[in-house]
């Protein structure tokens, strides 16, 4: 068990990534009750946007100087796609049966993935991504890579900023009002369309941060990374209580740690040798989700809302 601190740290890092992506699912769901299945692809396009900026920077530029530009490029791509999807695909279906925007989201996800596959130069297989120099750093028995530090710092900063924004700013309070009751919020003079666009934009920005962090951590991005990451992040959002931004982050961390511990230790339990290992981590993630939903259907931090599914 002396690897436990390291496995917890592994889970924490991957969990931060799930959490960052999950924010996009949860904010959009909280306000328009739409599961935006294209969000995983928005994360992927963010990573490709950052890479496109990096490839076009002059040679010899230090990665630290390039980082803000890459983040800006990735965020621009992700936010534009997220807001564009809202404006062109979801808004016309705002009052349609709930299944219609859901199917649209799945279609959009496939379209975005194929678009990158076909049109991004040489994206048919993995693209190398620059990595941060330095590291690994040792804290006790735990090794931490510089990419992991970026990920955790980015997650903490983004999360705190978002919490402050939602709690204290006028727009943030308008978001809470719209989430509680869009019709009444509109009667009180809140431009709900604007609030919805902002929710998509924030989700897109967080996805871009996650995309950049993923590239820096693994040193490679692919056109299909959005699917699995999106699925896990959606799970994290449901686990934490969909609609709740703190829940999304908590859900991500719980999911990441559960996955990493499950694949590390379950095979050590006598009689369960076949059920452990890296290939089973997704299975255990969903087992955890089912258990949590049986005990707390609203998720870890969710509120019990009777009239919403």
């Amino acid at each position: 068990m002396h690897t436990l601190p390291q496995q917890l740290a592994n889970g924490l890092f991957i969990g931060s990534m799930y959490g960052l992506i999950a924010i996009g699912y949860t904010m959009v769901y909280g306000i328009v009750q739409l599961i935006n299945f294209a969000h995983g692809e928005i994360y992927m396009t963010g990573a490709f946007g950052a890479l496109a900026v990096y490839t076009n920077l002059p040679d010899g530029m230090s990665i630290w100087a390039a980082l803000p530009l890459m983040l800006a490029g990735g965020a621009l791509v992700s936010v534009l796609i997220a807001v564009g999807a809202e404006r062109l695909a979801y808004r016309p279906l705002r009052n349609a049966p709930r299944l219609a925007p859901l199917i649209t989201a799945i279609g959009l996800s496939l379209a975005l993935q194929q678009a990158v596959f076909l049109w991004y130069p040489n994206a048919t297989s993995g693209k190398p991504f620059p990595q941060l120099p330095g590291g690994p750093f040792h804290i006790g028995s735990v090794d931490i890579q510089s990419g992991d530090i970026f990920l955790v710092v980015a997650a903490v900063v983004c999360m705190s900023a978002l919490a402050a924004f939602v709690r204290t700013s006028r727009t943030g309070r308008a978001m809470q009002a719209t989430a509680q009751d869009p019709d009444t919020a509109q009667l009180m003079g809140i431009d709900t369309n604007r609030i919805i666009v902002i929710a998509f934009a924030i989700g897109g920005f967080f996805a871009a941060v996650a995309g950049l962090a993923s590239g820096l951590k693994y040193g490679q991005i692919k056109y299909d990374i959005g699917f699995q990451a999106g699925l896990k992040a959606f799970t994290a959002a449901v686990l934490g209580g969909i609609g709740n931004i703190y829940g999304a982050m908590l859900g991500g961390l719980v999911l990441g740690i559960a996955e990493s511990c499950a694949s590390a230790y379950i095979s050590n339990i006598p009689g369960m040798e076949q059920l452990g290992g890296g290939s089973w981590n997704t299975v255990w993630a969903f087992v955890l989700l089912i258990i949590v939903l049986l005990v707390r259907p609203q998720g870890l931090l969710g509120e019990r809302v009777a009239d919403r599914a």
Partner: protein
Amino acid sequence: MRHRSLLILTSVLTTGALTLTACGSRSDDDKGGSSGGSGGSSTSATKNVTVVIGVDAPLTGPNSATGLGLQYGAQIAADDANAKNLVPGVTFKISAKDDKAQPATGQQNATAFTSDDSVIAAIGPLNSSVAVSMQQVFATANMVEISPANTNPALTQGKDWATGKKTRPFPTYFRTATTDANQGGFAGDYAYNTLKKKSAFVVDDKQTYGAGLAAIFNQKFSSLGGKIAGTDHVNTGDNDYSTLVTKIKNSHADLVYYGGQYDESELITKQLKAAGVKIPLMGGDGMYSDTYIKTAGAAAEGDLVTSVGVPVSTLQTATDFINAYKSKGYPGDYGTYGGYTYDATTAIIKAVKVVMDANGGKLPAMPDARKALIDAVQKTDLDGVAGHVSFDEFGDTTNKQLTVYQVKAGKWVAVKSGVYTG
């Protein structure tokens, strides 16, 4: 008004349709013209026929670097045969289909080949798991399939090969690459006896190729007295291996053996070395790709693979092939399977000639030609660019050469070649 706009619309559509049709027929004419041209250059007076050889490989997505090596290896063989007029009266054409390393897509491609009367035989696939889904389709159509890359023993020797009860499941399936029974054993032997590694952590990707190879390595390494420090499995397409890396680190193994493709192992070795675990990662031919070194960078240094055959670049016969590949600027890695693909394609081309000679210089009508080709390919006996090509009673190559390569200064360097004797 409404009437008139309808009229305009109709006329626009008609004009458009006519233009498109005209374009279509013109491009058809062009094609006819070019094949007629090459026919004119051949000395044969008989009418020139075009024979298509299908290629199935992953051309996009995972494994596509090596997959493209298959497509263009076959292309060069066909071009050479046409230029040298190897089979008078026949122009060979390559039709490549992308299987995306997916068994289901491979099967669709196989069906497309067998239902197309111009296709006489097929080259491929790259992945053993894809081959499993294609073999039956080709066998039913009596169409020869030669894989330059499949190494899973069960493909030619049946599922009970390990117990010594070898039966050939499909008479239409051949391969120019030797099997993992040889490769995994060769790797286990090298790791224990040459590298003096005593403790190995064995990982695989649960695919037909990877799991099979890892199991054979595991068996050989432990039978020699090596310790298996742990085993794990990964999902293809994953990119976070931190849990696995922690396990390997904690197991104090001095070697990681990976059964699978370069797509996952390049990330595993990178994350392994980044975590300070400075032990080599060893794998099979699926990992022997320049992309592996490109992605893993310095982390790849010291890593090892076994691959089929002797290094293509050391064979005198291969020089022309490599020059052709480079001069045409084709994408993909020719290093591993390019030479074998060339030889597999040449085997088909020569077999076509045998079939034609037996039929009075004419190619029989399609179902018969395919059937006759099986026998002709079985009797293949030629010196190819990657060594001698002939097939045993299971459809396996008789060329059982294997080579260990190691990454040295950012390049794969051959460190040992030999034949595995068990």
